[in-house]
């Protein structure tokens, strides 16, 4: 590559960098700055307001995300272990479907499915598993949110874990099987520890994605009681026009996401 070509290529690469700087870098910096400014003066008042109004919601968000990660990985590890040990392509394929269902659609589908008069209540009533006419309150509280978030994220987690588990050579599993280790022990004693790094990565990414989830809780929440952080941010920004407090909420979400930032930056460094 001669000097002119080098210049040409670098110039051609510039627009992408500029667009991301304008649409991502600058807004990120602006929200950091705005969180420390109120009425034109530098202050910590935005954070004080967040503490007063939203500290419960921060804990709630953390709780929902943690429960979602636990449920997702409790299901994901066992499913991925099962697919690794006893191939079952069509079920594996089925589990990939939510990967292609957008978050908004997931939110709406789960709302229709889980809300008190939703199709799950109706189906269970029709099957006689609950008294007909029962309104299961799954969809409105934290549990419905956890189920919906798990539904959407499980596909990606299973995809990543099955990939990691398939990278473990058969011989390690057969060695364990020869000594009498069954499916559970092969999964937990061999597959999980041998895939620790991708497992931890998937865990961090799932946690961040759940902490920052917006459209699913937006469609599923009933508007009272504790809310997810992003919902608070949206209303603070959109309805109160309070960019300062919204930014402070945003900065808190950045801090919560720092695990993912670290994980991604490490993957770039490699």
């Amino acid at each position, binding site marked *: 590559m001669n000097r002119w070509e080098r210049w040409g290529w670098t110039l051609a690469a510039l627009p992408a960098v500029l667009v991301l700087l304008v649409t991502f870098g600058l807004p990120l910096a602006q929200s950091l700055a705005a969180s420390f400014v109120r009425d034109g003066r530098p202050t910590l008042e935005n954070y004080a307001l967040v503490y007063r109004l939203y500290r419960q919601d921060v804990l709630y968000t953390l709780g929902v995300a943690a429960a979602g990660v636990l449920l997702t990985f409790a299901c994901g590890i066992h499913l991925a272990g099962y697919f690794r040990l006893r191939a079952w392509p069509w079920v594996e394929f089925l589990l990939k479907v939510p990967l292609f269902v957008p978050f908004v659609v997931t939110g709406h589908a789960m709302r229709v499915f889980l809300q008190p008069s939703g199709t799950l209540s109706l189906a269970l009533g029709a099957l006689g598993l609950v008294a007909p006419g029962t309104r299961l309150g799954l969809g409105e509280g934290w549990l419905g949110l956890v189920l919906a978030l798990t539904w959407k994220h499980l596909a990606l987690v299973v995809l990543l874990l099955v990939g990691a588990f398939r990278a473990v*050579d058969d011989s390690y599993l057969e060695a364990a099987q*020869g*000594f009498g280790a069954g499916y559970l022990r092969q999964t937990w004693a061999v597959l999980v520890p041998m895939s620790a790094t991708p497992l931890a990565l998937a865990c961090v990414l799932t946690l961040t994605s759940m902490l920052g989830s917006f459209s699913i809780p937006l469609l599923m929440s009933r508007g009272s009681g504790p809310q997810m952080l992003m919902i608070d941010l949206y209303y603070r920004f959109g309805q109160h026009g309070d960019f300062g407090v919204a930014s402070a909420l945003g900065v808190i979400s950045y801090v919560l996401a720092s695990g993912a930032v670290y994980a991604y930056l490490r993957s770039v460094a490699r």
Partner: protein
Amino acid sequence: MEVRVEGLVKRYGRVLALAGVNHVFPSGALTAVVGPSGCGKTTLLRVLAGFVQPEEGRVWMDGRDVTGVPPQARRCALVFQNYALWPHMTVFDNVAFGLRLQRLPASEVERRVRETLALVELDRVPGIERRRPKELSGGQQQRVALARALAVRPGLLLLDEPLSNLDAKVRQRVRGEIRTLQRRTGITTVYVTHDQEEALSIADDLVVMDGGRIVQSGRPEEVYAHPEDPFVAEFLGSTNVLNGTVGPDGRILPSSEGRLLFRAEDTAVWPAGQSLPPDYAWAPAEVVDCLFLGHVYRAYVRLGDTVVLADTKARVGPGQVVVAVPRDRLLIFSGSEPAARR
């Protein structure tokens, strides 16, 4: 444990990995199964371990039919080609894995692990039981793999190319150690390898496989000296193959009726015109090239349209010569019929 297999057949897609295998693996003996890659030897080993179900045929262990029995109920221990030592566990945990699954008390597990590590002579390395496989040399990993297999006191020890990941010098030593260990413990052992020298040196009982079949079995000396089949002869080191017959005067004549096989080390190169002893088969030939291999010279000699190899003590120059093979070292096959010596 005496192991008997009868009529084993296994296909992978259209490839016939086992095409009707019958054999008795004698109790307490080390049987080496040797053959080129793809001959079915590894499949046979995995059928014995129970990881592969044969489509036809049966497996007996001490008179019990174990054909449908899952691996964990067979009292077999397999040592994998890559050792398959779990990298996240210490040496101790690796060796203890099978014992813990048998729900032995902790003190008994500890005692058995130490005993087995001593058996494979790893007890001389202080603190080795707390190390992880990655921190060990190849030879040490090999011994840990052996210890893990032996700790559960299996009735049958299966070794899948156990030396292929070691460098040449270590391989020689570990080979001897496996032999000693097998003698000492008296465990019935099946040893799969593609290396004929390794198989010959270690086996009580040698099985040569090709194309999913056992082509010959017996004591290693017997199989080496009396191959019943051109494939076995060639596989066990008879690198020179000529289409021809031996005339009444000992001269080798080109012919499509028969095949002559002989080893490079048995082949002599003499100056043209020298008088020939009567117990040799011979032919005029031309030296094409001569390479120094260290312990011998290897001459490339053109005989008709074939080039044969001859190992000589001294360098032989290019030019006309006579190639000679002692008659009792010459394997003569007619067509694809079994061996007819001399």
